[in-house]
């Protein structure tokens, strides 16, 4: 059947055609262990086997051979009704897809199959090509939240995309999972409304992970117009929001947030006390020296170390100014 296949492989390749599932399982497993590049064609044919175990092992074997000719046959497995087959094929393709496969992916994403669309959206993150943008945009309005989430996540992996007005609406999506990814993606977009939307999400969103992600994204923009919102978020009920807000203020704080940061020096979470001390050090106002001195007795060693550094930084700045 395969004239160009060597004698060592031949018995196993023939066994792969057996009507008994057990034989096909043994054959595909053995071919996987042999790892011979010549077995690629029979292994690709095994992807169409009716037994999912044979199919799964064939995917793993092809994955290990890392031959780019397998990309298209593996893509077909992404629409499999079996979750394990889809996951294995996706893992294999994550390593196999290259920028040259973009057109194959874009063809596949137009197929009316939920699993195929979802998996291709994930694979597009590996290629980073802005040409994929027109194909990603329609999913922002999909009825399935999984597709909206995958699409907005993929958007932040596409190079050279700086503005994307349709993406902004997802920060007010009905699903918290979509809003979480949308806030992270907005950190990489430069649309005019981005900062305002992130600030609203930071203080008003009911989901704490959205609020935390908003604080992270504001840190990427380093926009000082967000300071008053960050000041409000320093008293958020969730400690992670307070922590990431304090971190963001390390980049863009001014004197107006000093009282709120000083209050954070007595927070029950040591991470927040530490990040607030760093932010106060970066602001460099000598009026906070006495407060920082008090944190040198903090029960957490990290807080003590970073408070000392903040004090040293402020004193150094004072000396430079006096000179």
């Amino acid at each position, binding site marked *: 059947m395969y004239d160009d296949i060597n004698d060592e492989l031949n018995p196993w390749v023939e066994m792969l055609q057996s009507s008994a599932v*057990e*034989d096909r*399982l*043994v054959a*595909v*497993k*053995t071919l996987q*262990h042999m790892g011979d590049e010549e077995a690629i064609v029979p292994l690709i044919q095994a992807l169409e086997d009716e037994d999912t*175990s044979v199919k799964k*092992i064939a995917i793993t074997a092809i994955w290990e051979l890392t031959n780019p000719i397998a990309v298209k046959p593996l893509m077909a497995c992404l629409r499999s009704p079996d979750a394990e087959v889809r996951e294995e094929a996706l893992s294999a393709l994550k390593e196999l897809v290259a920028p040259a496969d973009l057109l194959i992916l874009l063809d596949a994403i137009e197929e009316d199959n939920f699993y195929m669309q979802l998996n291709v959206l994930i694979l597009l993150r590996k290629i980073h090509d802005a040409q994929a943008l027109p194909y990603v945009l329609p999913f922002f309005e999909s009825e399935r939240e999984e597709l909206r989430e995958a699409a907005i996540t993929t958007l932040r992996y596409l190079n050279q995309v700086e503005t994307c007005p349709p993406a902004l609406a997802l920060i007010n999506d009905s699903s918290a999972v979509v809003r979480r990814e949308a806030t992270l993606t907005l950190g990489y977009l430069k649309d005019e409304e981005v900062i305002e939307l992130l600030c609203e999400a930071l203080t008003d969103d009911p989901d704490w992970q959205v609020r935390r992600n908003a604080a992270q994204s504001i840190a990427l923009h380093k926009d000082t117009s967000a300071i008053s919102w960050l000041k409000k978020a320093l008293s958020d009920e969730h400690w992670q929001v307070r922590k990431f807000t304090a971190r963001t203020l390390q980049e863009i704080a001014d004197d107006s947030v000093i009282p709120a940061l000083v209050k954070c020096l007595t927070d029950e979470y040591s991470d927040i006390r530490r990040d607030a001390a760093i932010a106060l050090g970066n602001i460099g106002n000598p009026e906070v020296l006495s407060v920082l001195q008090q944190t040198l007795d903090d029960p957490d060693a990290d807080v003590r170390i970073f408070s000392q550094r903040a004090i040293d930084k402020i004193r150094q700045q004072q000396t430079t100014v006096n000179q």
Partner: protein
Amino acid sequence: MALTTQRVDVPVIVDESKCLEKCQACIEVCPLDVLVKNPETGKAYMKYDECWFCLPCEKECPTNAITVQIPFLLR
């Protein structure tokens, strides 16, 4: 290396109803070569009670016939 007398006491348990006679996957991947085929039944079993609990035998078995019982303190 001690020969095992009671197969139920060894850490690598093979479900004989699932083990394929022509398959050698677990035997090939075992770094200690302690798995062998029973010539009478054609099923794999742990001949020597030596195991690193490295798990490729369990992972590579195409029918999930192998269970490695990891001692509590190694978990």
